[in-house]
């Protein structure tokens, strides 16, 4: 008896003879890692990898930038923000432009750093730009709790946090299989993916190393041709079925679901988060009576379609010509997790 040689993930991928398949990554870091590791180059031609709405900066609508610019210039607040929001164009200007007009913009790594900044600078009114998915929401909630406990009155949040499940719903016809975001599931568990499976939508959740990504593709390419919907957790060293109950509890204590606007996808009910009434004192929109802002993006920019996976960056007339990482027109080129920035950076690998 000859013992069979163990098949590697790469063997499985190389041997794929199955039907055409569209795999959507729903995480900006997956987009970049798949490019950076050259995985697109080794996938068989009938395997199409498309980027979904998983970059938090990219899905933040233009009107949100306008609100932040208004707060900075009209109200004179200090804006604390993740760095990649600074250069996202608003209707008239970005936060970087506002800074050149005298606005105070501080780049922070964590909402907790914004809270520390507010504590150390009691004379400044500090607004933290709370964007992000389930991964970045818990520290924003913790910052609010700490601020309430410390009776910090110069700290508030401009909240645009989003949650993934309704976005999966909105995207489910644009792909055959989802590559679910590993760290969202580390927080939320695999319940939402299981629910998608009940609707007949396939997916795997995976991590970010070459081994994890190749294994995830091997799993997809093995199970997809069998024709039966599937879900597999390919990241069990970080993702537990129940996720992080402590993080879920923290989010629920401070925030509640609301309808929110996604760039490209429009307003999706129950897909956003807002502060609960008991934390209204930390809601920058209420504190400063922020007027409603209908942002307007550059009409030629196709970020909206790119975020839905219906257009690839090189198909946008601006891509690589007037829209580059140095002079971004759309959010997907600004953020290091954006699809346009990945295509631009790893342009030689484009397919």
């Amino acid at each position, binding site marked *: 008896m000859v013992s069979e040689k*163990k*098949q*590697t*993930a790469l063997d*499985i991928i190389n041997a794929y003879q199955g039907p055409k398949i569209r795999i959507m990554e729903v995480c*900006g*870091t997956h987009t970049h890692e798949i490019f950076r590791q050259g995985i697109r180059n080794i996938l068989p031609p009938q395997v199409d990898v498309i980027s979904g709405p998983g*970059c*938090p*900066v990219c899905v933040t609508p233009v009107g949100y930038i306008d609100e932040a610019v208004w707060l900075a210039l009209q109200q004179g607040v200090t804006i604390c923000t*993740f*760095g*990649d*929001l600074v250069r996202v164009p608003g209707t008239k200007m970005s936060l970087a432009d506002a800074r050149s007009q005298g606005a105070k913009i501080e780049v922070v*790594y*964590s*909402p*907790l*750093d914004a809270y520390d900044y507010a504590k150390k600078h009691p004379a400044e009114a500090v607004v933290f730009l709370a*964007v*992000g*998915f389930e*991964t*970045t929401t*818990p*520290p924003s909630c*913790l910052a609010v709790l700490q601020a309430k406990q410390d009776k910090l009155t110069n700290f508030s949040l401009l909240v645009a946090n989003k949650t993934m499940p309704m976005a999966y719903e909105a995207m489910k016809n644009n792909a055959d299989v989802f590559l679910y975001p*590993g*760290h969202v599931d*580390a*927080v939320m568990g695999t319940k939402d993916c299981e629910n998608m499976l009940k609707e007949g939508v396939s997916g795997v959740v995976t*991590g*970010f*190393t070459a*081994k*994890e990504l*190749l*294994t995830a593709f*091997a*799993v997809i390419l*093995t*199970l997809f041709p069998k024709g039966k919907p599937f879900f*597999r957790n*390919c*990241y*069990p*060293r*970080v*993702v*537990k079925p129940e996720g*992080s109950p*402590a*993080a879920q509890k*923290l989010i629920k204590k401070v925030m509640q679901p609301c309808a929110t606007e996604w760039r490209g996808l429009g307003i999706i009910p129950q897909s956003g988060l807002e502060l609960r009434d008991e934390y209204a004192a930390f809601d920058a929109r209420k504190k400063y009576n922020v007027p409603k802002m209908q942002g307007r993006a550059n009409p030629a920019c196709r970020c909206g379609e790119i975020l839905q996976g219906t257009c690839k960056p090189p198909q946008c007339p601006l891509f690589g010509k007037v829209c580059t990482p140095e002079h971004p027109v759309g959010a997907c080129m600004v*953020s*290091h*997790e954006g699809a346009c920035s990945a295509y631009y950076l790893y342009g030689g690998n484009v397919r």
Partner: protein
Amino acid sequence: MCVGLPARVMKVQDGMALVDASGAKRQVSAALLDELDPGDYVMVHAGMAIAKITDDDTAETDDILEDLN
């Protein structure tokens, strides 16, 4: 912004953990994790440890491929 950093826990005190992410050291919140000890590996997002890392990717992916057969 939304980038997970794997990091090794060096010290745990008062709900905070000093972590080492490939040489970069900083304090992160450990409020979400019970029973965190020095030497554990955690996934850090925006200054907060969101999950413990319980294995390396080689053992994990070997198991997954094994299950496929």
